[in-house]
């Protein structure tokens, strides 16, 4: 998209890079039917997609693209954001991801902070969320691919991500 002004830049991030070990975490993991506490290390290898809260247009755009590219046919895909399990369940249904992708509910945003991809929202005091970030985490928890948004908004380089899938 060509704009005649500069898009807002996000501050530097401290996310894991390719070759680093991905931090493990446990959060409720939501599918179309229920949720249960699950560790990331239990679902790897997986594509881990940090994204802005359900309801924001970046969330919609990102997950429609993931769905339309059928990445869940290739690998396990999990999302991470601050929305509640109830919201995740509806989101999965609304965008036809029910039975395809699963979402970690992280209302405290602590997982995004641990990954160095937290984003404080201007004008929504007390609310933060992840900035868009995509990691492919291998079976041994090594980061095999990493991308983190530098602008607000910015969307994942989908073709590049797709090439990084096994």
């Amino acid at each position: 998209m060509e704009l005649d002004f500069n898009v807002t830049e996000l501050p530097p991030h401290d996310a894991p890079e390719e070759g680093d070990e991905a931090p493990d975490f446990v959060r409720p993991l939501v599918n179309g039917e229920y949720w249960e506490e699950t560790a990331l290390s239990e679902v790897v290898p997986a594509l881990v997609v940090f994204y802005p809260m359900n309801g924001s247009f970046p969330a919609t755009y990102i997950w429609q693209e993931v769905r339309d590219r059928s990445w869940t046919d290739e690998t396990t895909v999990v999302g991470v954001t601050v929305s509640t399990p109830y919201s995740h369940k509806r989101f999965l249904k609304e965008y036809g991801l029910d039975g395809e992708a699963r979402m970690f509910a992280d209302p405290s945003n602590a997982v995004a902070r641990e990954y160095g991809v937290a984003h404080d929202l201007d004008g929504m005091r007390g609310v933060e969320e992840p900035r868009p970030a995509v990691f492919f985490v291998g079976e041994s928890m090594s980061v095999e691919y990493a991308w983190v948004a530098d602008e607000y908004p910015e969307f994942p380089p989908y073709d590049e991500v797709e090439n990084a899938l096994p």
Partner: protein
Amino acid sequence: MPDNDERTLYRLQACPFCERVVRKLEGYDLDYNSRFVEPLHSERDAVKRVSGSRTVPVLVDPETGATLSESANIVRYLDTQYGNGGS
């Protein structure tokens, strides 16, 4: 995410019948994995697949192969199985 040999409790957030079972499991120091479902009955097909009905709580206990519905049944089962006759 549970191993297949772990007890699983299908539960609804803030459901008093479910919490009654949780107290009992904790009282007997039994490990279990929680699967939370939605308040709406029509949204509980996962529960129906394991127990035949959409009511919660449901306890699945691989140690004995038991799948139980209704908190009174579950409590009676736990007392008998793990409580040396009950408490």
